[in-house]
């Protein structure tokens, strides 16, 4: 692993309790660490939630982030992912007059499809690696997307 500023993904398992998310984000902001993306949801049938945090930092910064997160009382575990499956979702809205068959074909290449069609617009969904989501959104520019929303990454160690 290099020591320079690289994108890194960590998972944090926390007890589901009031303000636990603030504790995590305050730690990042208070210590000057960066959050690129953050997703959080309860782990089914447990009292825990799982946060997936994408961040930028050197190995040393990551070590501090991990240790400081561990110090928080509701934090059960922190994993820094090295060999993981990582996915992110994006929803994009297009005008109904755009070339929908082209859009749909491209979506399929990114594990996606049209998920909603209304009178004036359609919404597509894709789920893929964050870098590929970047590529997808770039390729969608020519179809004049009206709105774009990204979910942030989720990751599991292989």
């Amino acid at each position, binding site marked *: 692993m290099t020591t320079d500023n690289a994108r890194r993904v960590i998972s944090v398992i*926390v*007890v589901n309790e*009031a*303000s636990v998310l*603030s*504790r995590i984000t*305050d730690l990042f902001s*208070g210590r000057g660490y960066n959050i690129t993306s953050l997703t959080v949801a309860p782990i089914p049938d447990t009292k825990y939630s799982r946060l997936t945090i994408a961040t930028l930092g050197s190995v040393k910064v990551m*070590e*501090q982030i991990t*240790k*400081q997160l*561990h*110090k928080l*009382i*509701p*934090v*059960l575990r922190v994993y820094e992912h090295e060999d993981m499956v990582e996915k992110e979702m994006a929803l994009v809205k297009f005008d109904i007059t755009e070339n929908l068959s082209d859009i749909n074909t491209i979506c399929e290449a990114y594990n996606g499809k049209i998920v909603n069609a209304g009178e004036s617009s359609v919404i597509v969904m894709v789920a893929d690696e964050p870098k590929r989501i970047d590529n997808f959104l770039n390729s969608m520019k020519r179809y004049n997307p009206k709105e774009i929303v990204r979910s942030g990454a989720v990751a599991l160690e292989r």
Partner: protein
Amino acid sequence: MQISGAQMVIEALIAEGVETVFGYPGGAIMNVYDEIYKQDKFHHILTRHEQAAVHAAEGYSKASGKVGVAMITSGPGFTNAVTGLADAYMDSIPLVVISGQVPMSLIGTDAFQEIDAVGISRSCTKHNYLVTDAKDLPRILKEAFYIASSGRPGPVHVDIPKDVTAQIEEFNYDIELELETYKPTTKGNPRQIKKAMEAIAAAKRPLFYLGGGIINSNAAYDVRDLIHKTQIPAVETFMARGTLSHDDKYLIGMLGMHGSYASNMAMSETDLVIALGARFDDRVTGKLSEFAKNAAIIHVDIDPASISKLVNADYPIVGDVKSVVNEMLTLADCVDGSRYESWRETIENFDALHPLTFHEDSERIKPQWVVKRVGELLGDDANISTDVGQHQMWAAQFYPFTRPRQFVSSGGLGTMGFGFPAAMGVKAAAPEKVSINFTGDGSILMNVQELMTAVEKKLPVINIILNNNFLGMVRQWQTLFYDKRHSETDLSMQPDFVKLAEAFGGIGYRVSTKEDFDAALKDAVEKNVVAFIDVVVERFENVLPMVPAGGSLFNMMLLEKKEDK
């Protein structure tokens, strides 16, 4: 038994063995204060400001080793207490601070005296709670005391809405804590400890670097044993003063920005740093890349995040200092202390070259003289607190400390106004000792209202004001680094400190000669009263040695020798 949330607070404090609570009542905490009125199991000390209540609890905790407790109300009561929480957080002081909150139904409505207290305290406490149901109170209070005092100690804040303190529920404090996410490592890894001892045995110029964690874990006497057994010299951080007695032959002195020449040079020349409960603070290390450049580092700390945070540890040992040092003691036979004789001689030569001293003045009192004189007259009989500034550094440099917990000061946060209330807490914890607070003419005014508390509660703190009519430390930096532009540091306009003390029912002395100082101190000690001794000292005295911020430890600004002047 079925009792109110307010009664639960009282019962929990009693169950935790709390003897003294510092605090200030208000609307949202009134239910609890009503229960305080009805009980006689612990003593409540009414401070005159919430900040002072927390500092007093800190002083109490530092002097006694127990968890300090402060109680305050919502809104401004809480915001006033934030500085105390931050101070305790930085110095790892175990506190439980209980605040009142507006009723649950009003939270989030911008109600009178409402503030998001847990939101504010999150970044300056080890942990915090908003109690939303009295059923949770016994568990939360038990957790609060446990979390505050275990692992790396720190302040825990418990915010309780007024309706929760009125809620009647079943109370049972005999509960097992289930903190599966909080399990501090106290026992060091035996293999790492063995490796560290082998490194010590092999080193040529090892050096103990003693930090405040030693005091917090009550490990000072174990550390003394280890040092005497291995015959390795030691430097203390500001926070560790008193770990070794001032006359211990292995103590070199304090290191860091205002450390002694010998201490800083020893740190620069050592080949093995044995850091115990120390966190490589920037005021200690100076320029990091030059700090103990040729040394391997053994780092013992209960907080894993402190290890290799700033300086890479070659032998990291996570654990309680007391436990680890005792493990080290069992292996200490492998260390032949006679090997370090020439290293000790080298350090003695450093000390002889630039001893920690000051130039006496026949006309004006030097502040360092005052500290030394108090040491000569009271020595071990006094506990020493300080405010923040030059006087604080002089106290740390020149007072002859003999024991741990004798020195109480604001290290990490550097809080002016800390000293007087902290000294009251020290006096409450150790009434048999004289409680001295070295303060400055700037610092003392930041919590001067506590004169009333001290007089009323018969906490005879003797405040020795080293009065140089300046915000002295800032003035020193302005002199040295801002071409003598003394911007807003001149405190020529001052209250009459004698009359001020008298106005509150204490005694004031203004002294400008050594004889008068001796007489005033003797009188204040004999009368056992709250006192201000306002000492007119040399205005432009600097704290030396000094390592300029960001400079290397071995590049110190030193006291000019007399013949150089």
